[in-house]
């Protein structure tokens, strides 16, 4: 195409130029964004665990994790008894229940522990013993403070259940209500019993 022909054609109209105009952000976008942020916040609050180091995976919050801790059942009570025993009693009676010469008599196989009833046994940690007792034909002459007096009923019951069913012992379990009954027969600060008094207690 020559220049001559091109110049003879009519000039095309100029392309429409884009033009910048100021316009307000549509209000629905603002509202929608705020609603989405709000829903996201709610979801995070319920499922995020709030950055707690111990909350993972299937658990959504610290409360839920606490809810799912295995607590019920005889096994859990026994396990709790073991924990309390090792903290309170194990130092002298030994974590193996064999006692320590010159410190505390054995609990494993002891007729004091495995008796059919637990009335006498429960009195030992509740009031304490002062003076000699006979365990498995052997004399033990020493004092035990009322180590269990400060324990809650349920804790003391689980300890007694634990020592009555561990290390080969096979005796009935003790419940918190039993301990509560026995404790309520005692005064506020019962005096420690002597070994002979304790031995004379009904089982």
């Amino acid at each position, binding site marked *: 195409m020559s220049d001559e022909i091109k110049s003879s054609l009519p000039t095309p109209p100029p392309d429409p130029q884009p033009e910048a105009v100021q316009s307000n952000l549509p209000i629905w976008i603002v509202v929608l964004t705020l609603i989405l942020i709000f829903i996201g916040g709610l979801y995070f609050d319920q499922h995020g665990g709030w950055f707690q*180091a111990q909350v993972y995976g299937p658990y959504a919050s610290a409360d839920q994790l606490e*809810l*799912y801790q*295995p607590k*019920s*059942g*005889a096994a859990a009570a026994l396990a*709790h008894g073991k*924990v309390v025993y090792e903290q309170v009693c194990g130092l002298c009676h030994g974590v193996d229940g064999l006692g320590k010469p010159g410190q505390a008599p054995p609990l494993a196989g002891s007729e004091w522990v495995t008796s059919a009833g637990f009335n006498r046994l429960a009195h030992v940690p509740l009031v304490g013993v002062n003076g000699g007792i006979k365990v498995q034909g052997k004399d033990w002459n020493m004092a035990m403070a009322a180590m269990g007096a400060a324990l809650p009923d349920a804790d003391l019951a689980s300890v007694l259940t634990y020592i009555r069913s561990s290390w080969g012992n096979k005796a009935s379990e003790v419940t918190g209500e039993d301990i509560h009954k026995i404790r309520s027969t005692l005064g506020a600060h019962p005096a420690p019993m002597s070994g002979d008094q304790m031995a004379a207690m009904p089982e």
Partner: protein
Amino acid sequence: MKTGLPVIFAVVLGLGGSTVGFVLAPAVQLGGVKQTTVLNSTDLYPPQRIGDATLGLQVYRANGCAACHTEQVRQEGVACDVVLTSAGKNPQAVSNLLATLTMTHLTKEAADTVADQLTAAGGKVETHIVPVGVDLDRGWGVRHSVAEDYVYDYPVQLGNLRAGPDLANIGVRSPDSNWHLLHLYAPASAVSNSKMPSFKYLFNLQKVGASPSPDALSLPSGFAAPAGYEVVPTTEARQLVAYLLSLRANQPVYDAPFTPPAKP
């Protein structure tokens, strides 16, 4: 340079933000993780790794095991099973009730309701916490991995590809060190369809001396050493196996509770 200040500001924001998010926040959140106690027990978890097992982590790392193996077990959910331990004094009422109740795969709330109903009828119940997940169905673990599992790992060998099985609990799943040695020397001799490469260079092929070495592998036919030779694991192989056997993520802890099976 008009944009200098905004560029510097953007760089500081970008690098600072990622340092806070990826380094500082996790360090604050989990940097102080220590040994924890096993649930309902006074035992500590995890036990400190000793001797060969400590060195084995470096062998594991040097051989790139983490390229194909993970050490992280996932758990998708948690369920409660209600277990009747004793029917009590009124077995008829309890068994009538049992016929109408679902006992397994409950939420905690539903399990508590069921337990209350059965207790009211005179039965004795236990509620068992049961983790649920695909990895657990495969037998790779008993619960999801928690931060405490890695307290003694440096560097942590999490891995992100599972060309091979997860190893978080391998010490419980395969407690036999001879099996591990055989498997490292000739994977196909232990697992028929194994894709794992052989780690023969962790073993010495040596002439049988005056008497055979007590450490020599007893290889199945088809994998056995040529006559007059024996295969003896090197120190590295032993360390690696000691490390693998120390991977035992099977204890219930507060972060990952479950009811362990009753001891016989």
